């Protein structure tokens, strides 16, 4: 027995069994530069690929997941496979990172146990894709009507402590008003886009140190949109993005994604 040659199966996504989808994924490179193949059971199949067992057992994963380079490579490969699947399959259920089985038998056992639940989720997401919209407040906008802190004709050098405190209070007030205005704009954007979506999810604001984005992340949302409504949705985002700088905001669109944010099969439905 040579453990370095043992292979586990890294699972990416559940889709409805389809030769066309399985064929399209043959050319895609997955995690650990491995190929992707389909493991079928009844009407379902899991897109999965062989990975070295030593790197993907409990200990191997625990170690590798502490390595940001490894995590990034793996996350990008994971998304690459799921993105490729979403481009050809009408409905894709993305699995969370690092879902690993010993062999095909384990995959089939899982598919058998969750067959109805997975099929129902695939039906619910059929023909729908996810778009991500982030709004950042850049801190440069000013609410209409709320002028900057009132300037008095006080010579700067001679400003008294009371003047200073008054100015600070006015600045704080302006900042609060500015933040309120930014929140109103974010809410308006979310309302506009919600009207074009089947379902929405609000995500926690992104950590600026990870995202590298300037400004305050006031909206980080995902919208589940019918494929045929995609152009309408992206046009709406484009219009909002064009207007946003006037309010000191920036609007970013990502997608189309596989419906990561809507795939949870355990969550109770939130759609109206």
């Amino acid at each position: 027995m040579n453990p370095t040659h043992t292979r586990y199966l890294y699972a990416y996504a559940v889709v409805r069994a389809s030769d066309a989808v399985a064929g399209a994924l043959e050319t895609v490179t997955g995690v650990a530069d491995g190929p992707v193949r389909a493991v079928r059971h009844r009407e379902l199949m899991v897109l999965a690929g062989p990975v070295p067992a030593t790197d993907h057992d409990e200990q191997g994963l625990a170690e590798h997941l502490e390595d940001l380079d490894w995590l990034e490579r793996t996350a990008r490969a994971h998304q690459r496979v799921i993105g490729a699947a979403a481009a050809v399959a009408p409905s894709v259920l993305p699995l969370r990172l690092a879902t690993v089985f010993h062999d095909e038998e384990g995959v089939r056992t899982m598919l058998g146990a969750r067959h109805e639940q997975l099929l129902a989720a695939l039906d619910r997401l059929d023909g729908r894709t996810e778009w991500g919209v982030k709004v950042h407040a850049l801190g440069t906008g000013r609410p209409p009507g709320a002028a900057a802190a009132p300037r008095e004709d006080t010579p700067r050098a001679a400003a008294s402590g009371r003047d200073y405190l008054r100015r600070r209070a006015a600045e704080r007030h302006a900042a609060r008003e500015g933040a309120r205005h930014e929140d109103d704009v974010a809410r308006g954007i979310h309302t506009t886009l919600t009207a074009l979506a089947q379902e929405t999810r609000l995500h926690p604001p992104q950590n600026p140190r990870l995202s590298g984005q300037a400004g305050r992340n006031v909206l980080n949302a995902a919208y589940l949109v019918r494929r045929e409504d995609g152009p309408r949705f992206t046009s709406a985002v484009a219009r909002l993005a064009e207007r946003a700088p006037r309010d000191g905001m920036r609007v970013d669109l990502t997608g189309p994604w596989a419906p990561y944010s809507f795939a949870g099969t355990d969550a109770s439905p939130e759609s109206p």
Partner: protein
Amino acid sequence: MNERRAPVPSEGPADLADILERVLDKGIVIAGDIRVDLFDIELLTIRLRLIVVSVDKAKEMGIDWWESDPSLSSHARREELAEGAGADVGRLAARVAELEKRAGQEGSG
């Protein structure tokens, strides 16, 4: 016309934060044969920072506009998250603080 090639007004490929947000936090959780709890992974406190920031710090940062809008569907989820993950968040907040301290020491060294 290919409906999947919709015009995308933003920058090109999704950045790492967008990908990690999805592959670590979203998608279905299915227990594979290999058991790895992503919450136990130190690096993934990057992920948990996002949660800690959202639950503990969002108000402090002034990001709470959805709270005042009961029609927003995620409100209940957010509450659930805050309650269900309360103990975890406390534990992890401490962990994050420790890591930040360490990162600060490394950064200043």
